[in-house]
């Protein structure tokens, strides 16, 4: 059994060991004890805050595995975060992938040219980040639950988030940490290696020095070397799971890419996300939904209460058209709900 819940102080050691196994060069989790502590504190404060307008809040969720026989045996096997408002304290910069129509009536020529424009449009979007799932759960519904739980929380707490969401995914780098996209573009302005640039900028995309150094005019894609073009919008292999989960959720790639490594930035209006447009609010009834016969579907179920966000997966018959969902007392406990409470359900 698995549950997704807000991170707690007690999770810090577990997060530290998780951080140790994540791939080098890919910015998913904070690495050092100090930074992990900071992230946890910030998350605790964010969940506790009264929020009217989304600002610098950052919410960190963990996926916890529970052994039914030994409830004390718990293990953190994934993380996922969401920032309330990207680029707060400034601007979130990205490249917009523009298409320019080139038309010549006389020559009867009409083709389109792609151009990358430095833009700040993603500023104040809510930003999903720090997704990591243990290899053991990557193929199961738990990974999807983990990714989606952030949106389930946003569905319940709309005042804490923007109407639009995005997720930058790490772009392609080679074994030496070189990024072909960076070498073709950022390096010309920054005059330094990709990893050095990421280090000096701390992975941020909201710094004044980006305005100072990055090109102000669109970059015509056909002028980029082939290897740089080839990695535009391509994900680092480590991001494949996240990419698949997010596109299934309704996120769209192609419109924006990262200004440093050219990795894809997935984005969507909340109305286009399945969590927002296909979830149901159902009443809880006590029962063993898993005992029935017939086809079973995977659902993500979250509580709606203020008693601490919890989300679980549930395999059960189609909930379409029903008014209540059957949950065992154990699951009700996990979700901190009781018979008659409402929960949010969405198919995985």
């Amino acid at each position, binding site marked *: 059994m698995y549950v997704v819940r807000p991170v707690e102080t007690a999770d810090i050691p577990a997060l530290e060991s998780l951080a140790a196994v994540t791939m080098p060069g890919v910015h998913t989790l904070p690495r050092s004890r100090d930074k992990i502590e900071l992230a946890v504190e910030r998350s605790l404060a964010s969940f506790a805050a009264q929020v009217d307008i989304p600002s610098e809040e950052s919410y960190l969720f963990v996926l916890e595995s529970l052994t039914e026989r030994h409830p004390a045996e718990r293990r953190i096997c994934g993380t996922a975060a969401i920032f309330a408002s990207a680029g707060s304290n400034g601007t979130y910069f990205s490249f917009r992938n523009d298409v320019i129509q080139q038309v010549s009536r006389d020559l009867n020529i009409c083709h389109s040219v792609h151009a990358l424009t430095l833009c700040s449009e993603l500023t104040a979007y809510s930003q999903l980040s720090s997704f990591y799932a243990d290899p053991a759960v990557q193929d199961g519904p738990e990974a999807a639950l983990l990714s989606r739980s952030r949106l389930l929380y946003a569905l319940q707490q709309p005042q804490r988030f923007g109407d639009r969401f995005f997720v930058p995914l790490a772009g392609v780098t080679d074994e030496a940490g070189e990024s072909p996209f960076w070498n073709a573009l950022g390096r010309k302005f920054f005059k330094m290696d990709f990893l050095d640039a990421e280090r000096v900028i701390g992975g941020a995309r909201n710094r004044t020095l980006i305005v100072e*150094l990055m090109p102000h005019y669109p970059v015509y894609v056909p*002028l980029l070397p082939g290897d740089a073009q080839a990695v535009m919008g391509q994900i680092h292999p480590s991001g494949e799971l996240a990419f698949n989960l997010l596109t299934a959720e309704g996120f769209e790639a192609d419109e924006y890419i990262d200004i440093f490594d050219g990795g894809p930035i997935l984005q969507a209006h909340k109305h286009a996300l399945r969590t927002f447009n296909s979830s149901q609010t159902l009443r809880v009834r006590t029962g063993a939904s898993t005992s029935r016969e017939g086809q079973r579907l995977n659902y993500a179920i979250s509580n709606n209460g203020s008693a601490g966000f919890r989300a679980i997966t549930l395999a059960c018959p189609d909930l379409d058209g029903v008014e209540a969902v059957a949950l065992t007392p154990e699951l009700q406990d996990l979700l901190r709900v009781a018979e008659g409470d409402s929960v949010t359900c969405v198919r995985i």
Partner: protein
Amino acid sequence: MLVVRAINERDLNGLFELASQVGTGMTTLKPDMKMLGDRLATACASFAETIPPEERDYMFVMEDTATGRLAGVCAIKGAVGLTEPFYNYRIGTLVHSSRELSVFTKMETLYLSNDLTGSSELCSLFLHPDYRTGHNGKLLSKSRFLFIAQFPHLFTEKIIAEMRGYQAEDGSSPFYEGLGRHFFKMDFHHVDDLTALGKKSFIAELMPRQPLYIAYLPQAAQDVVGQVHKSTAPARRLLEQEGMHYEGYVDIFDAGPVLQARVSELRAIRQSELAVIAPDEDIVHACAPATTEPTLVSNTTLKDFRMIVSEAVNVNGSIDLSSAEQQLLRCRTGDTVRTLPLNVRKNNA
């Protein structure tokens, strides 16, 4: 003897013969009787001042008076870009600097521009290979400056000349391969042919509109920005001696440089002088320098403007031209001519 003179109605066949010798690479002088006839008519109307200054196209031919054969041609257009847009890339500088990172990056940038719209243009210079000796090339090229010095009011403040850009041995343009091809998706020579047909402005519809950092281009393309075609280097030097400079404008296809000058700063404007034709009296002779420099001499008539190179010297406003020379210029003793040393005087600084 050779004289450079305003073209006239009787020169069409000679012009066609000359144009037939030009070969590729010169888009404004093709052996096409219709095109040449139209252009000749415009040129005649220009010298006759029956069309407005900005529409004029002053063509000059170099005639071998011994045979009546046309040895060369050159022209000045009153103004470019007033009927269809005249495009260039202008090279600018952008500095990207971050004190925080101690990074200071100076980048050259290409701006698609019509800045030179309305400038007067030197163009269509061609000297028949048989005549490429002695002062002939200089006479032909520089004759236009003497014309401008005599009639500065006919020209705009700015005068330009487009120089053919660098090409590789195989005739390809590294600049075009690095930039234009991505947007036109056709061969450089095809583009060049379209340009010859006057379709330059329409091709420009396909050029990227936004400023481009030159650093985005392949090194081979970067290297040839503002570089002339090998065969154009001597022509460039001649123009530069007359006060024209490369100021960062280049052709949008091959990045050949545009040379430009303020009319008021041309050597011909600063150094040419008027002189009255007078017999060589002792006093004049005595004050003349011991060694003479060849001098460009022109008459002062718009309609039948004529220029020669002479060994005679303008001494205190008088010049002793031989009767043959006077005949070439359609002048006689007592007439006023304009003189300019053919070669550039070195500054004494």
